[in-house]
């Protein structure tokens, strides 16, 4: 048996060009399949890790998923803002332990700018209730001070004390708030969440930036230099959203009802877990379709392999007859052909895994930047191993066809191949 497998490997090596192309087709199909699976699980992972310990996310009335995506992942735009008075009413509610105001809408070279309170750095939790840590420096204290997420600092090469200017809107080249530079006071340690890609400033800074702006454009002829902004009332009038923590989790439905029925303006409160579940449900169909399509691509690759082996059999009739004359039984011939198919499949699967590992390493920065998905370069997870096993199992089934054909052929041919 070992000798037969060794011969199968040597024979396969002699046809390495044909089999190599088949192998590459399988490898690419496997890469696609694993990539879909990995992005699927890593997307869930990074979304789930992004916020922890928050009982309610509050914003203007919109979809729960939309609010969640905007407030936590800084994706998309808010339909509306909420008034500062509404925020105060919620934050001072007896059931509320803490509340963090969030003001979004500006950006710095593609990174979102978040206006918030200094409490944010103490209260915000991610992953498994992990706190934010400063790699360097400290929280902003005054107006025109900024704290950078680790990727912002690393990607743009900023250090403490550097000055940056913000852009209005999320476009990479929006109108600049060039007249009011910010000084970097702190840089956060990496978290693997959207925090890494965020520039944090105070709410007052956001107000100050827009003193001489109306309706998304600078007021013509009016400029208020930074040194004079302190003379204005910088208390925010509006924020985009708020994160709320309760004293008792059991109050969550009561609080949610209070916010949703708030009389001052239409508000929406969502539980992050519920909103994420809703999100997964809405993307589940897409996920499953993608998985099904990539599974089909793998099947096409394996069918191609079986066809290649079958097509090659006629030219190998003599080889099989020689092996028969040397004492190989039809069973060994069957084994040899089947083993060849399994070998090609397994090598293809392995190469696919290697391609995925290399590819995910190369694509990781892009995925994080564009989609906010942290794709870790890591060993395959149990679901990926199950997929690989399924691929090899299917490869075995596909290889039974040429194996069976060779078995029939060697029985019919005996020692003298009929061409």
């Amino acid at each position: 048996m070992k000798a037969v497998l060794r011969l199968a490997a040597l024979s396969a090596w002699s046809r390495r060009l044909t089999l190599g192309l088949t192998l590459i087709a399988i490898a690419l199909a496997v890469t696609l399949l694993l990539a879909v699976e990995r992005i699927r699980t890593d997307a869930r992972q990074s979304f789930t890790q992004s916020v922890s310990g928050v009982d309610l996310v509050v914003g203007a009335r919109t979809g729960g998923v939309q609010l969640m995506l905007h407030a936590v992942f800084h994706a998309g735009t808010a339909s509306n803002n909420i008034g500062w008075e509404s925020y105060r009413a919620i934050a001072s509610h007896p059931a509320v332990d803490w509340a963090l105001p969030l003001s979004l809408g500006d950006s710095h070279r593609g990174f979102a700018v978040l206006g918030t309170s200094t409490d944010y750095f103490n209260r915000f939790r991610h992953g498994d209730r992990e706190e934010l840590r400063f790699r360097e420096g400290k929280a902003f204290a005054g107006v025109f001070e900024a704290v950078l997420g680790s990727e912002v600092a690393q990607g743009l090469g900023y250090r403490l004390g550097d000055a940056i200017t913000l852009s209005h809107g999320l476009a990479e080249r929006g109108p600049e708030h060039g007249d009011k530079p910010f000084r970097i006071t702190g840089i956060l340690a990496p978290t693997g969440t959207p925090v890494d890609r965020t520039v944090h400033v105070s709410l007052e800074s956001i107000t100050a930036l827009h003193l001489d702006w109306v309706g998304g454009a600078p007021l013509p002829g009016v400029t208020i230099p930074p040194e004079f902004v302190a003379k204005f009332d910088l208390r925010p009038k509006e924020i985009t959203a708020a994160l709320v923590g309760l004293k008792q989790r059991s109050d969550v439905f009561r609080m949610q009802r209070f916010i949703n029925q708030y009389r001052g303006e239409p508000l929406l409160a969502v539980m992050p877990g519920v909103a994420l579940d809703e999100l997964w449900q809405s993307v589940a169909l897409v996920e499953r379709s993608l998985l099904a399509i990539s599974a089909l691509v793998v099947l096409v690759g394996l069918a191609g392999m079986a066809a290649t082996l079958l097509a090659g059999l006629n030219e190998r009739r003599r080889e099989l007859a020689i092996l028969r004359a040397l004492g190989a039984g039809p069973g060994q011939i069957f084994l040899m052909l089947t083993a060849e198919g399994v070998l090609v499949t397994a090598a293809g699967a392995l190469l696919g895994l290697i391609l995925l590992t290399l590819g995910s390493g190369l694509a990781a920065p892009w995925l994080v930047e564009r989609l906010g998905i942290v794709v870790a370069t890591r060993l395959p997870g149990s679901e990926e191993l199950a997929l690989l096993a399924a691929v090899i199992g299917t490869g075995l089934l596909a290889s039974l066809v040429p194996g069976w054909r060779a078995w029939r052929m060697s029985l019919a041919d005996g020692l003298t191949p009929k061409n």
Partner: protein
Amino acid sequence: MTALRIADLVFRWPRQARNCLEIPLLELGAGERVFLHGPSGSGKSTLLGLLGGVALPQAGAIELLGTNITQLGGSDRDRFRADHIGFLFQQFNLLPWLSALDNVLLPCTFSSRRRHRTGPSPRTEAERLLGHLDLRPDTWHGPAGELSVGQQQRVAAARALIGRPEILIADEPTSALDAERQQIFIDLLLQESAAVGATLVFVSHDRRLAGHFDRIVALDDINRVAPEHAT
């Protein structure tokens, strides 16, 4: 002692109206070197398949070295063939992607009996045989597919001889060689099979090659089926 005995053999291919072979009796002694003559279409290949145990007759016995192989199961017949019979065919005998040396060693991977009978080192024995068959060491390690036809046939002969099988069956092994080399090859084969003490069955349609054999058997004489009906 009898090395090969066929008695009352009847063979017919599936879905054929007539028998292909009907051989009442054929006996070959141990160490005998026999020229089996048969024109093409006389059922030579069929007979070789029966001797190799890859086909089974409808009736009759095929005794090789005292074992009636028609009584053996399929895998036992495969093992018997690997252990006791060396085959040599017209051409393309070798696995082109193995070296000449590895081709010669192949029977030792299929049969532990043949491996043990090579002595302490199968490799040394393979090299000795290749040397005996006038193959220079520089031809031993390259792919067998790159050798000339004559060289390939000599490698195939070395492979048939390794591990001293009791029976050597050669099916038109010289038909791809030019006339001059045919006789040289046959003499080499006769000499080597005598050296290992094997019974040699040399099958050919070309009577002119029969000169140096111990005995000549015409298939048409022992087969009762008229030749035009055989395949």
